[in-house]
């Protein structure tokens, strides 16, 4: 029955779609803005999930791609260039893809720890370079033209998030590529022995996972109209992506989006109640540690249908000793 098209399903889908697309008319400005943020973070968490959850390589540098996208869009939309907003997004994606390929190429051949370190260092280096470079406005940042409509970004983010989800779902759950990525994650040696070019597959996954945040970064730059290194390149952006994916469920098709929605709304309410407080950082850290220990498959594993999968995963001892001998 799974995936089959029945009348009730179509009806439910149409109702949900209509409700979601008319939300700005129902909920008022405040919640429209919050939901815009939810779409964005859902897209970002889903993107991080491609490399972190499906490929099993933890990237601690995704803020770099988000920031690169934001700066690409901002630079192209400066008065002297005056590009159309939507034309800047493919450029942002291309920039992120090139950077991801350059970083991924040497590090994805190695063990995950190297990759985590390298991506982390990349984010730090990008933030530092943007801070000192002239054309990026340094620490003063860049200002973009103002788009006055609140619901404009609601729809742009929503459509971007839907596209991100569909692309990730089709490529990773419904294609040969998805099987390859999961095979590499679950047992790299076995995947290689059946003829999968594991380094290439991991690089493709990483590039895909880097392109999506760049697009969201571009949209976000236009949304907030003013960007500087702390607002689009801070490590907190990466932290949030990682945490949302972890809380939602690593390697789950929609879990990270759920994690993003939950955490982002909690975050906003937290800010509304206590102001801009650093205790949120502490809370996020505690959440990550707790989820890793007590709920490693995330919130999505509480969903009844996924229980079986979890049990199967527990019974198969994978990756017990990935370490080569003779160190």
């Amino acid at each position, binding site marked *: 029955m799974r995936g089959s098209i029945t009348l009730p399903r179509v009806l439910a889908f149409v109702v949900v779609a209509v409700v979601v697309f008319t939300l700005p008319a129902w909920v008022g400005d405040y919640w429209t803005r919050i939901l815009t943020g939810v779409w964005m973070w859902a897209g970002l968490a889903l993107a991080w999930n491609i490399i*972190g959850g499906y490929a099993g390589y933890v990237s601690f540098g995704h803020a770099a791609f988000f920031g690169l996208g934001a700066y690409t869009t901002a630079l192209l939309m400066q008065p002297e260039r005056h590009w159309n907003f939507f034309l800047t997004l493919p450029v942002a994606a291309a920039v992120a893809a090139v950077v991801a390929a350059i970083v991924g190429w*040497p590090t994805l051949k190695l063990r995950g720890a190297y990759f985590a370190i390298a991506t982390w260092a990349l984010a730090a280096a990008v933030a530092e370079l943007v801070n000192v470079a002239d054309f990026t406005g340094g620490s003063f940042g860049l200002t973009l033209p103002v788009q006055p409509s609140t619901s404009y970004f609601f729809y742009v983010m929503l459509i971007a998030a839907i596209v991100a989800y569909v692309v990730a779902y089709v490529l990773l759950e419904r294609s040969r590529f998805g099987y390859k990525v999961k095979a590499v994650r679950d047992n790299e040696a076995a995947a290689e022995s059946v003829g999968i070019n594991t380094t290439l597959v991991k690089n493709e996954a990483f590039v895909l996972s880097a392109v999506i945040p760049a697009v969201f970064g571009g949209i976000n730059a236009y949304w907030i109209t003013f960007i500087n290194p702390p607002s689009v390149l801070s490590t907190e952006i990466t932290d949030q992506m990682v945490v949302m994916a972890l809380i939602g469920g690593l390697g789950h098709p929609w879990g990270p989006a759920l994690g993003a929605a939950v955490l982002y709304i909690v975050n906003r309410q937290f800010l509304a109640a206590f102001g801009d407080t650093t205790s949120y950082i*502490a809370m996020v850290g505690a959440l990550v540690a707790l989820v*890793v220990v007590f709920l490693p498959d995330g919130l999505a594993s509480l969903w009844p249908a996924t229980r079986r999968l979890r049990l199967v995963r527990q019974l*198969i001892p994978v990756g017990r*000793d990935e370490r080569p001998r003779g160190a």
Partner: protein
Amino acid sequence: MQLLFQTLVNGLLVGGLYVTISIGFSLAFGVLDVVDFAVGEWVMLGAFAGVSARAWFDIDPFAALPVVFVVFATAGWLLAPLIYRVRTSRYARPALMALAFTFGIATLARGTMLTTVGFDPRTVHTGFATGTLSVVGLDVPWLRLAGFIFAIVATGLFIGFLYLTRTGLAVRATAQNKENAGLMGVNVKRISALVYSAYVGLTGMAGVLIGAIYAVTAQVGPQYALLAFFVVVLAGLGSVLGVLVAGLFLGVLQAIVTVYIGASYTLAIVFGVLFLTLLVSPRGILRRGIAV
């Protein structure tokens, strides 16, 4: 020339402290198979422990170093079983889950410290090493020299422990191959906890010295974590000897970049070197680490 020599000396002195941070970190990686993202936070917390030793108990932070070691080692001892549990769990990619766990601990520590002490920089004030030593025209602040001497002694003791004691032998065996070490009667879980707690204690002490030399803020952790990562990657993950070379190299590199190019390019150049190392020689500069 004068400036160059002065820069080299400064770099070497700071490099000693980087060695101290990285050597435990490298070994903890070797034994637990986990990259500890909290390494920079241990430095930060160590520095704040030094600050509070002065502020709360009016003890000289350098005199409190043994206490700092004990406190931090205890914290490490308590944390290690959790890391070990995550690392050996049956979920897919336990190494990366453990990585995420230490990342969570690091974020928790940073957030807590930001909430309690805020963003203001603090300095560890000590009465032990003040003034400057002048040798052949080079100025060496006693404080930095003290830091370097501490680094040599601490690192020496650590290496001595590794290579001269039976427990050290067990540690090295565990780092090489956990299963075989276990078959030879090594309690891998206990050794992991021991190494992790020794590493946290050592790093906390190094934090006190770093806090005395530079001012620290609650958000300084990631910066030192990056330096430790750099040293360990350059050394080749798991190579103790490489750490000595790479730590001193990093100190010198950083000093030269700061003096001749500008402090704000340090991270970018550090990243560039890291990237090239991974590209050319993933097993580290001495080719003694673990590749693949």
